[in-house]
């Protein structure tokens, strides 16, 4: 009975619910925005790396490797606490979006590059032989096929970005985790933390499940 009152206290949960839901909204906004920016950046990076001027390709590789190697928390702390020293002062939300997007773009670029490279050369040759423009070749032929290949790993990456939004609580951003710790302090009871954990799981479990289903689906589709 004591255990339930401590961790699963209905009254505390009810009272902290508005705070948790506000946090959930912030988390979703941050996550979705970072995912979209990361996808756009990743597509640009992947195309530059594959088809951009060869002289610059080292630069894109360096970016992609660097931002996959650096821990997001370290990057976030640098963006939030170090950049003000050079006059760049970002809000907690902007700092978190920047850090998450920069890293997500690097991972997305690698996933997309692998997807594009998995398209047989004959598809490019057939497009070229028909006289299709570069953009039509990519937009009509290559990317639609690459997308099918990259959907499962891309979904995994989105899950990671969503999870990593919790790091933003370190820079005092009122995300789900931050709101939960605040509610916990207010109520002197850890139930809000459990509530936040449940919300993360409810949000991400379907996505995790979808990765598996999609992988099976696409494995069957490929002749």
């Amino acid at each position, binding site marked *: 009975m004591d255990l339930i009152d401590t961790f699963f206290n209905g009254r505390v949960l009810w009272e902290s619910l508005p705070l948790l839901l506000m946090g959930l909204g912030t988390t979703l906004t941050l996550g979705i925005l970072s995912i979209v920016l990361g996808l756009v950046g990743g597509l640009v990076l992947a195309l530059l790396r594959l088809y951009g001027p060869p002289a610059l390709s080292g630069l894109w590789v360096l970016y992609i490797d660097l931002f996959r190697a650096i821990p997001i928390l370290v990057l976030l702390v640098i963006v939030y606490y170090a950049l003000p020293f050079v006059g760049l002062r970002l809000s907690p939300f902007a700092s978190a979006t920047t850090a998450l997007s920069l890293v997500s773009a690097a991972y997305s670029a690698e996933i997309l590059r692998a997807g594009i490279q998995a398209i047989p050369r*004959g598809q490019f040759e057939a497009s070229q032989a*028909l006289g299709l423009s570069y953009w039509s070749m990519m937009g009509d032929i290559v990317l639609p096929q690459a997308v099918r290949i990259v959907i499962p790993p891309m979904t995994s990456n989105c899950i990671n970005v969503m999870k990593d939004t919790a790091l933003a609580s370190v820079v005092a951003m009122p995300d789900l985790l931050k709101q939960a710790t605040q509610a916990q302090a207010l109520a002197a009871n850890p139930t809000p933390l459990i509530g936040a954990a449940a919300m993360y799981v409810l949000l991400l479990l379907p996505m995790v499940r979808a990765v598996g289903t999609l992988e099976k689906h696409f494995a069957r589709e490929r002749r």
Partner: protein
Amino acid sequence: MQGNDMQAGQSGSGRPTPSARPIISIRGLRKMYGSFCALSGIDLDVAEGEVVVLLGPSGSGKSTLIRCINLLETYDAGTVVVDEVAVRPGPNLAAVRSEVGMVFQSFNLFPHMTVLRNVALAPIRVRKLAPKAAEDRAMELLTRVGIAEQAGKFPGQLSGGQQQRVAIARALAMEPRILLFDEPTSALDPEMVGEVLDVMQSLARTGVTMLVVTHEMGFARRVADRVIFMERGQIVEEAKPDAFFSAPREERARAFLQAVLNH
């Protein structure tokens, strides 16, 4: 069978005689793969409407040669001129390519699109045809190659022979003046070779210029205006098919024919 609808309008007078003007003109074409010489100084003129079959052992440079004509393969020296336009990288390349259709050994159909969309896409994107008009035209072409009833399927649902006929229709949709065939029947099961060769033979009668890399000797003999025998990146012998198959001049051509005909 399918060939008959294609001849309609030509009143059975056979294939138009090739004109003298070369539609393809190749001079001094050289291509290296590292230290391996794939093409060593090829000179070749092809007249408009001519059907040229390229024969030779594998690795002799036949495929490389026709892939240089639409610049799927870059080359180290020489010139390729198609319809008086030099084929080189740059803004004109796509225009030249759209005049030169190509049929590949492995079909290279777009697997994520229906058969109809495969055929209609390039006219929509390159020729700026209205989608409806392009699809009507695609349907005509699919009828011509005898697979209109498959228009709504995806390439993966078709047999190899059917896929290759779709690929031919896709190339025809751009109304090219030149068609390149890169071993179009080599990836097919034997019982499907005939249906593809039939389509190609009826195409040859329409006056389109054709360059065909193949190992189908019967096709070469029946359909070619000229046979070109290549070995080690060089043109060893050029002749009318009758002359080539009955009495090849070059020893290497004789040896090749003996090897492919007596097995």
